């Protein structure tokens, strides 16, 4: 699904900052992967490149056997629209649109009619237990509810991969657990490929594979086949 080969990225803000120093990584379809690392390690940059929100300087990124390099803005937009679902730490819901409209927004850019996309958005909200909140603005929702709206928005186009950037970073431990379980459920039941960036071990130990990044290179990759062996156990989430 995802094939990264020797990815380099340097930021030029004042003095050059070499953030990614040759990342090579393969993620197969249906995997639930977490990327861990200290702040400044380059994990968010990597996720942004995976999400075609940012460009890389050297190397190769294949998404679903398509080389993602030097894409036109329109191609990039279309790939993001159809292949990738985003979940952000700060939810990134549009404040003046209600929950349903937020969830339906990706379908607007797919060219769906208002009626059809709102109906589908209601379906997804119902699945996530937010039916009664469909007509509320984000400011009227709790953090957990907001993140669930964001998840509904991320999966409404049935993307091949879900990219989550610190999805529990702004949530308390109870709602964090709900969100993680939701992601797990999506991975297990819908066979969605999910990549989570986090610095919380509790989150990472719910995933099948933990990629550790340090100073722009991959340290080690942990296979976490049996989730029960995690030091935090089933159902425990360390904040």
């Amino acid at each position: 699904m995802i094939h990264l080969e020797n990815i380099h990225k340097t930021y030029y803000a004042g003095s050059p900052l070499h953030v990614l120093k040759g990342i090579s990584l393969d993620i197969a379809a249906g995997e639930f992967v977490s990327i861990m690392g200290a702040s400044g390690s380059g994990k968010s940059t990597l996720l942004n490149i995976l999400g075609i929100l940012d460009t890389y300087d050297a190397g190769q990124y294949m998404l679903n056997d398509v080389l993602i390099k030097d894409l036109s803005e329109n191609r990039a937009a279309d790939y993001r629209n159809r292949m990738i679902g985003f979940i952000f730490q700060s939810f990134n819901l549009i404040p003046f649109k209600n929950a349903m409209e937020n969830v339906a927004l990706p379908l607007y850019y797919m060219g769906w009619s208002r009626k059809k996309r709102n109906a589908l958005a209601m379906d997804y909200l119902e699945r996530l237990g937010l039916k009664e909140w469909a007509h509320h603005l984000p400011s009227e929702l709790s953090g957990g509810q907001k993140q669930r709206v964001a998840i509904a928005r991320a999966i409404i186009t049935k993307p091949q991969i879900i990219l989550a950037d610190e999805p529990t970073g702004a949530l308390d431990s109870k709602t964090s657990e709900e969100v993680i379980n939701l992601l797990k459920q999506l991975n297990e039941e819908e066979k969605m490929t999910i990549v989570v960036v986090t610095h919380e071990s509790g989150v990472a130990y719910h995933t099948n594979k933990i990629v550790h990044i340090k100073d722009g290179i991959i340290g080690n990759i942990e296979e976490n086949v049996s989730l029960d062996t995690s030091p935090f156990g089933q159902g425990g989430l360390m904040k």
Partner: protein
Amino acid sequence: MFDDLIEIFSNLKRNKLRTILTGLSVSMGIFLLIVVLSAGNGLIHAIEFNSGNMALDVMEVYAGYTSKPYGGLEANREIEFDNRDIGIGPSNFPKEVEAASGILEVWGSTLHVGSKSSSVNLTGCYPEHADINKINITYGRFINHSDLSDRRKNLVIGEKTALEFFPSAAEALGKVVSIDSTIYTIVGLYGGNTGFGAANGYIPFTTLQTIYKKGVKLDGLKLRTRGITEEADDTVFQNKFRAALSAQHRFAPDDKSAVWMYNTSVGAAQQSKGMNYIRTSLWIVGLLTLLSGIVGISNIMLITVKERTHEFGIRKALGARPWQILRSVLIESMLITFVFGYIGLLLGIIASEYMNYVAGISVIEFDGNKMYTFLNPTIDLTIAMEALAVLIIAGLLAGFFPARKAVKVKPIEALHAK
């Protein structure tokens, strides 16, 4: 498209006060443009109407004083026209001069009928005079050739003057009146707008010369010209005509103070040039007012777009193409300018119609002669449409530059914008 509009309305609703305030500056701009142009039109229409009774192909020639010695004669000598000069135009310049008549006037005579009296100016004239001066005969006839050759004491006066003495205009025909102790018969009446001055009475040219002992002297000449509308043609003809007169009256052919000439068609051309200046300057004033509204809208769009950079980032992450974002901003900006511009346009037209209603016809009445100072202060639909077109283009431009900037931002940078 309908879907897109709903999208955009939800954006506009988010900041109602700002949308309205921005819109008002546009409304005000277009309102002032319409009102200024309408008021200007009122002025222009009035001037055009007032000069509408002037024949456009008439050249008036008056005698003056020589400014230089010539042919042994000293300078500062008075030139006097006489009957022979009337023929110079048609016989020497058959191509340019269609007809000619003399100007001979007696001012401040008194017209008596029984015990009533009124002041009147007498004009001695040829039959062509009615044509040249666009005199509108409403009853009877104008002075004719027989009147002239027989030196008849026939008179043509205005309807308004006639009504001072007789119960109806029709009854005045054939009645006799006395002017300066001479009895005249009224053979015709004229009506309509005749310009300034006391009531004019028209009598045969020859009659006036005889009664007022003018001999063969004239006050001036009136020529009906052909094809002299350009200032350059006019100058050429004036020089030729002056040369012809100089041979007759022995003054230097280039002595401009010896005879004075005025060509109404050139005057009209100058007047219409002046009208164009007024019109242009009004447009400039109006457009500048409109511009201030547009600058306001550009400013707001700039701020709005900056504020929404984060939102655009979200939209891009969800798969919005750059053009889709650009288009939404453009439509938004156009919608504001169009809706509020239309309101301003409508209010402007209502205001100009109101102006038309209260001051649509402002007239100075002067002894029966109307002089308009303000007439029909409204604008054409085409101008309103042009203003609307200006608005739509302006709205597009106001939205385009900020939006293009916003669209160029990388999605990740937009997402990080606060």
